[in-house]
């Protein structure tokens, strides 16, 4: 059952070939068996899962329910779950049970899904390897010496290893796409504003966006259908109708033009280039035309991002002060001691690094030179994309420079770590939708191709990815140890 796509599972449930309880139990068993190795879950919720499953079975027995009814899912531990602790991968929130559901959680529950548990992640989503988690690193199911990517590393590893049929992730600079690529699954970061951020713990508010991580584009479409839409509780969510993503999947690609950003291919690793060449050949057979485009300011994305994201994070994380909830240091002497020790003990090194960078960048006298400048660069990058989308329907490039690296390989070198998101970050700065689609292997480790769409063109992206997946089986491969 763990090798099936959501569409296949939904069909099986609808036909009552198996119950949601059986399906849920199967995944709970697999979590018990494999998660000791992978460490993909921070919290497993078997009782809640089986109760959800039983409720779904009642509906399914009556012939009721939608396409996701009875489907087990796991949530990245950045999404608040009412009464279930939500840690954001941090000691700071180790003891935090939110009194509300994130909109994404509520919508997926409303759609009848079953909650298996909460997935491991880099602390406060700050990291590209899942090594900054207070709960320890997650391992890559394809090679357990390697990282799964981050920050949605638990989500990617759990889906790849068949511990959950699908998961949610969040993407601030590549945190859905990069781990999806490293683990050989399909992940979609929607347009900024497409999916509500209510109850999704903020890292960098103007960049954060939740999205689906699953085995295929079709599965992502099913999940996004339930996740997307305007939410009056999030002022930055966009009030715009949600298209029928499923209906768009099989559209013909003939005449579609896909742009190849020169800057993405200039210094590309030859093995990665080969993978992308093969994917492009597949697309040409489907009638796609390719066109070289330029994104001249894209080289500035990483520096701009590492001003904007830490600036927002330094403010977003100020609320973790030990006063109202979460971690509090023992026996504070006075207010200052409470603040200093709570935050010194509650946050990990990477989070502290970013708070320091952001606090500096926003300081009087530096604001114009850093934050304001970075925002201007951000506009230039968005303009680059805007120009490109006047000529093409989507862009194609690598998701990452390399396949998954080894645990510990980059933890001593933050810049090297940051550069593993070099191809994904610009998409967040521009607020565009982006996907990672499994496209092959390098040294036995999966790699992904990245598809970038125009604003709110998730349907087009899913269509382009799905037609590719109809012709290829990269997304069907399973890591041998977890087959």
């Amino acid at each position, binding site marked *: 059952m763990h090798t099936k796509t959501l569409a296949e599972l939904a069909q099986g449930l609808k036909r009552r070939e198996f119950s949601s309880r059986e399906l849920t139990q199967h995944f709970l068993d697999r979590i018990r068996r494999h998660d000791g190795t992978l460490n993909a879950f921070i919290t497993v919720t078997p009782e809640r899962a089986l109760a959800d499953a039983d409720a779904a079975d009642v509906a399914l027995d009556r012939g009721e329910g939608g396409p996701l009814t009875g489907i087990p899912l796991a949530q990245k531990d950045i999404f608040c779950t009412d009464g279930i602790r939500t840690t954001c991968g941090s000691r700071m929130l180790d003891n935090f049970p939110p*009194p*509300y559901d994130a909109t994404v959680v509520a919508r997926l529950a409303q759609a009848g899904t079953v909650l298996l548990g909460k997935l491991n992640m880099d602390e406060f989503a700050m990291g590209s390897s899942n090594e900054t988690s207070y709960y320890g690193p997650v391992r890559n199911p394809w090679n357990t010496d390697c990282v799964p990517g981050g920050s949605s590393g638990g989500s990617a590893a759990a889906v790849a290893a068949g511990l959950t049929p699908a998961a949610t992730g969040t993407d601030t600079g590549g945190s859905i796409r990069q781990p999806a690529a490293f683990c050989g699954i399909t992940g979609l970061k929607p347009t900024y504003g497409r999916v509500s*951020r209510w109850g999704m713990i*903020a890292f960098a508010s103007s960049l954060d966006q939740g999205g689906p991580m699953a085995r295929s584009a079709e599965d992502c479409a099913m999940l996004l259908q339930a996740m997307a839409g305007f939410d009056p509780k999030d*002022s*930055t969510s966009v009030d715009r109708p949600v298209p029928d993503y499923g209906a768009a999947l099989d559209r013909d690609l003939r005449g579609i033009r896909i742009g190849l950003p020169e800057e993405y291919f200039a210094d590309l690793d030859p093995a990665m280039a080969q993978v992308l060449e093969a994917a492009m050949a597949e697309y040409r057979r489907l009638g796609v035309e390719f066109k070289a485009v330029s994104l001249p300011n894209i080289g500035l994305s990483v520096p701009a991002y590492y001003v904007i994201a830490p600036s927002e994070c330094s403010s977003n994380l*100020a609320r973790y002060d030990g006063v*109202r*909830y979460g971690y509090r240091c023992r026996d504070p002497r006075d207010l200052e001691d409470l603040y200093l020790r709570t935050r010194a003990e509650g946050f990990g090194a990477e989070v502290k690094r970013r708070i320091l960078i952001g606090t500096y960048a926003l300081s009087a006298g530096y604001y114009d030179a850093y934050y304001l400048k970075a925002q201007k660069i951000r506009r230039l990058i968005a303009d680059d994309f805007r120009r490109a989308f006047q000529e093409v329907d989507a862009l194609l490039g690598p998701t990452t420079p390399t396949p998954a690296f080894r645990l510990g390989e980059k933890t001593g070198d933050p810049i090297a770590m940051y550069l593993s998101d070099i191809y994904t970050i610009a998409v967040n700065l521009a607020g565009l939708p982006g996907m990672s689609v499994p496209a092959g292997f390098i040294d036995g480790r999966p790699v992904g191709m990245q598809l970038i769409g125009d604003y709110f063109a998730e349907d087009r992206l899913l269509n382009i990815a799905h037609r590719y997946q109809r012709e290829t089986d990269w997304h069907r491969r399973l890591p041998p140890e977890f087959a």
Partner: protein
Amino acid sequence: MEWEPVIGLEIHVQLLTRSKIFSGASTAYGAPPNTQACAIDLGMPGTLPVLNEAAVRLAVKFGLAVEAEIARRSVFARKNYFYPDLPKGYQISQYELPVVGKGHLTIHLDGREKRIGITRAHLEEDAGKSLHEDFHGLTGIDLNRAGTPLLEIVSEPDLRSPEEAVAYMKKLHQLVVWLGICDGNMQEGSFRCDANVSVRPLGERAFGTRTEIKNVNSFRFVERAIQFEIERQIRVLESGGTVVQETRLYDADRDETRPMRTKEEAFDYRYFPDPDLLPLVISEDFIEEVRRELPELPEARYRRFIEQYGLKPYDAEVLTATRALSDYFEAVVRQAACDPKLCANWVMVELSGALNRAGLEIDQSPVDADRLAGLLRRIADGTISGKIAKQVFELMWDSGKDADTLIEEKGLKQITDAGAIEKIIDEIIAANPKQVAQYRAGKEKLFGFFVGQVMKATQGKANPQQVNALLKEKLQGGG
């Protein structure tokens, strides 16, 4: 050397919305601690602010009332600092682009008028409260107030004395209460003032170094704090020192200001646009809609009262102190259809006095405008004298009956029958031959004695003008 004080005020006005500026929690005052703070007000992870349109409406209303520019696009920013009663570690405020731009307000002082510039007014959220008592060395945090909408109104440094500052503050207080955008309750912190004070040699154009006095919450304390601060700065300068730019606190018990933090210790608030909120865009239609809701403003009504009713400026000012009082006065004038000055006197003296003694507001008055007008009509048409009217007013206050009923019941109708008055005068002249003789011998001040006797005999009901005329005639006639 002669010194000139330069003062600017920053006034925080709590806006009268039912719910908070960024959440649905109630803004009602006085609930048990932390019962009116929802997840958003508590700064819980993942929560997000959504702007309350009602707060924007009130801000625009204020802006229009001071003839300010309303920004078609304004931006919410985060003001970052750590404090236990600031749940998110930042306050959502407006920084570079406030919703209300330059406007002005006219103050009246000692018969002069002065136009005071308003630099800007911006929307922001209030913080919670730190409670230092009752916690044995600990601090209690009450977040009920966190997220209450505030309009911070910043004046130009146009004020030149503590008296002007207070006049401006009172005028602003009058306006925001008049507009119904603030309850004006200073004890509950609905209207709070920070004062920026500096002094310069008279004639000098450049400003001196200023200090900021924080959170002074009564008109009297503002005046005293500013006065103290002016004198302190002059003392410093005249003894050859320099004023340090700093924030000071006013201690009402000692009547002095004390340093709180210097410029070097000032917070770096690291303002940046709040990425959780889109820019606030206000349409022409919205502005016009609010403009249509604007009542006649106090200054306009003040001028109209002078012009239309011939009131003295002082009376017009007193009667337009609140919208309710001025509405009451106009209702009396309309229904009494008699001399507006008589109406003004009665509202300002008899009615206001009675309300003060009873500790009541005008809208709680036991005598409504209709009934007071009924009373004034009887003075105007001579049914009762002004003196009897005061008696009737007291009876009205206690009984809830109208003037005509009371005049009838108590037989207070003025005696205007000349024959009847003559008869009484004759009796009194007959009964007091000694006084009559003295009067006629030139002791004219005895006239009052005779008036008193007539009034006593008629229980005050005799028409005083007639009594005077007839008495004069009779007393002289006999001579």
